[in-house]
């Protein structure tokens, strides 16, 4: 309790000092002429925020880029591109070794078949020379699944932390959004909607570390002082350690990654559901009514009226999830610690930092930043549109 009381006292003192300073300077400004007041006061209001952002975010971000081009663990040995060439040349970071296996993987073949199905179905519905008709459920579902399957085939075959990180993005952003969309549509047509939504949304409130513990009791193998996980109860063969990928009869690696991603989908599907659900309720009823009067059935109303209206919301959900997942750390750290072929970029940032290798750590951080940049660009564009 002592720690809490002393912290609270310190914070109160700090707030009183800062608040007092802020008030004092403001009262001082009241005495000045209107002209000086208008010039200085805005900076008094935004000053603390700008200074803190500069010290803790802007300057550090620039310095992190700088450190990634400096020699030595601490960045005190001149300029070099060694960190970039070494890390990007390392097979544990990004490897193309097994790229030949992609074409023969079952997921890839499945993806190609679905692609053909989707194109055929889409062409049939389309007006002459108008490309593909994506309002056709078969076409859009087949094409969507095909894309997901091909990307998963590529990213589960190629190994290294960057590929693994991208695999995370595709699986979690893709499947959580799909689940969220499906749940939102189901909830829209169900009774007692709000209770169901609350229960599905609940994992969003707890920590990723807590979620990792919850799922440990789904994935555990029996024995060694721990209880049997639910999944191993249902699994007919030898018990599998789903997180580390090992079992009596071989290994499921790299698909153990998938079981960690499932935890993230469990958390984020609720988020996607809530956002998309709000968007669906925002679609004016008249649009659907008009389509029904014109003879559209329920499926057509959904695929050709509702879905196009909420496309921008779905894109927001996907970009948001992508940014979140590119930085995924807690779940990997709390389940495998990055062992068993499950490492990701943010875990490398932590590991190298803990080992005192500040320059490698910075290089990994910049890699995450580079992957986030395209999405940041889209966000700025959207925000600018909102500001104006």
């Amino acid at each position, binding site marked *: 309790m002592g720690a809490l009381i002393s912290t609270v006292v310190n914070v109160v003192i700090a707030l009183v000092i800062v608040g007092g300073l802020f008030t004092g300077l403001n009262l001082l400004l009241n005495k000045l002429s209107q002209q000086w007041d208008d010039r200085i006061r805005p900076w008094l209001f935004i000053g603390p925020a700008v200074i803190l952002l500069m010290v803790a975010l802007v300057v550090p971000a620039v310095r992190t880029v700088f450190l990634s081009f400096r020699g030595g663990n601490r960045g005190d040995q001149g300029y070099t591109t060694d960190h970039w060439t070494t890390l990007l040349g390392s097979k544990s970071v990004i490897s193309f070794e097994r790229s030949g296996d992609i074409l023969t993987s079952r997921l890839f073949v499945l993806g190609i078949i679905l692609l053909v199905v989707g194109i055929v179905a889409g062409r049939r519905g389309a007006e002459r020379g108008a490309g593909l008709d994506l309002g056709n459920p078969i076409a859009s579902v087949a094409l969507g699944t095909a894309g997901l399957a091909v990307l998963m085939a590529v990213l589960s075959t190629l190994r290294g932390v960057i590929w693994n990180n991208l695999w995370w993005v595709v699986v979690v952003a893709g499947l959580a959004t799909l689940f969220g969309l499906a749940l939102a549509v189901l909830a829209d047509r169900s009774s007692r909607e709000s209770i169901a939504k609350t229960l599905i949304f609940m994992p969003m409130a707890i920590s990723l570390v807590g979620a990792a513990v919850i799922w440990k009791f789904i994935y555990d193998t029996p024995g060694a002082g721990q209880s049997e996980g639910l999944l191993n109860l249902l699994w007919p063969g030898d018990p599998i350690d789903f997180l580390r990928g090992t079992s009596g009869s071989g290994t499921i690696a790299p698909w153990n990654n998938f079981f960690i991603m499932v935890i993230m989908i469990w958390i984020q599907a609720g988020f996607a559901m809530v956002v998309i659900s709000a968007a669906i309720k925002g679609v004016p009823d008249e649009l659907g009514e008009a389509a029904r009067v014109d003879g559209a059935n329920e499926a057509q109303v959904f695929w050709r009226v509702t879905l196009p209206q909420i496309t921008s919301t779905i894109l927001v959900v996907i970009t948001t999830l992508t940014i979140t997942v590119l930085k995924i750390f807690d779940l990997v750290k709390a389940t495998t610690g990055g062992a068993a072929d499950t490492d990701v970029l943010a875990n490398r940032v932590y590991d190298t930092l*803990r080992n005192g290798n500040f320059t490698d750590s910075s290089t990994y951080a910049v890699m995450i930043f580079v992957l986030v940049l395209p999405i940041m660009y889209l966000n700025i564009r959207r925000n600018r549109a909102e500001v104006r």
Partner: protein
Amino acid sequence: MTAVETTGPAMEPVGQRTHRVLTKVPTGILWLIVVLWTIPSFGLLVTSLRPEADQISGGWWTIVSNPTLTWQNYHDALFSPPGGTLPFSQAFVNSMAIAIPGTLVPIAIAAAAAYAFAWMDFRGRHWLFIGVLAMMAVPLQMSLVPLQQLYSGGAHVSIGSSTFILIPDLNLNNKPIAVWLAHTAFGLPLAIYLLHNYIAGLPRDVFEAARIDGANHFGIFWRIVLPLAKPAIAAFAIFQFLWVWNDYLVALIFLGQNRDASPLTIQLVNLVTSRGQGTELLPAAAFISMVVPLVIFFSLQRYFVRGLLAGSVKG
């Protein structure tokens, strides 16, 4: 089908009956998914209440044949965990000591900035605001190494042969303030964005009336804007409090070496990775770390959703 039709007591036409059944299908599927979604948490809750021997002998579903429940795990996790682990009662207090200032301080700083961005005229306002928003998407990993160096060595600039100290060595690493100060900065862009949206939407008449009555910016901010912005402040406060409470990475980087000040998340992972010792306490410890978020979630869900949806792109 015809048999059903003729024997049905209400003599309902098949089409209508099928329709009636079909409209219940979404509800059925939805609740099936809800059950699937809830099973993992429910299983952990049951496990947390079982004695150690029962936990090892079988999964939580064996509660049916072996229905012994006990609070012992909660008691042990809170007050006497096995060697090396901080009692979770202490870690709970540590989490509070980080999350409370990590929520209050950014609100104070952001409210002033948000008001200035919304209702004051100054050069560079537009671009500065866009810059602040852009910060929301910068991964916090970009700040970790420099911030740690700043906390333990200060900031210097060398020009020629002379070195200027910009920020002295404050030796903050492994103290709670290192964590909540970082959270304050990381939370600012979202706080400014949320509060700005709300404050900018307040009716202009209110401000003009106050101006005519002789109020200046400071008076308006203090007496009008802050009270009116309460809903937005509440939404951000809940989001930020949960974010800081649930955070693992920032605490691990800046406080990971100081066991006695470490929050619940760090202690929980320590318990996961300490193979063998105290595994039976893990479910109870997990629930201790989730109590506060769950209470907030179920009691303030409306605000929680608002803050979360607006803040989902936070760094």
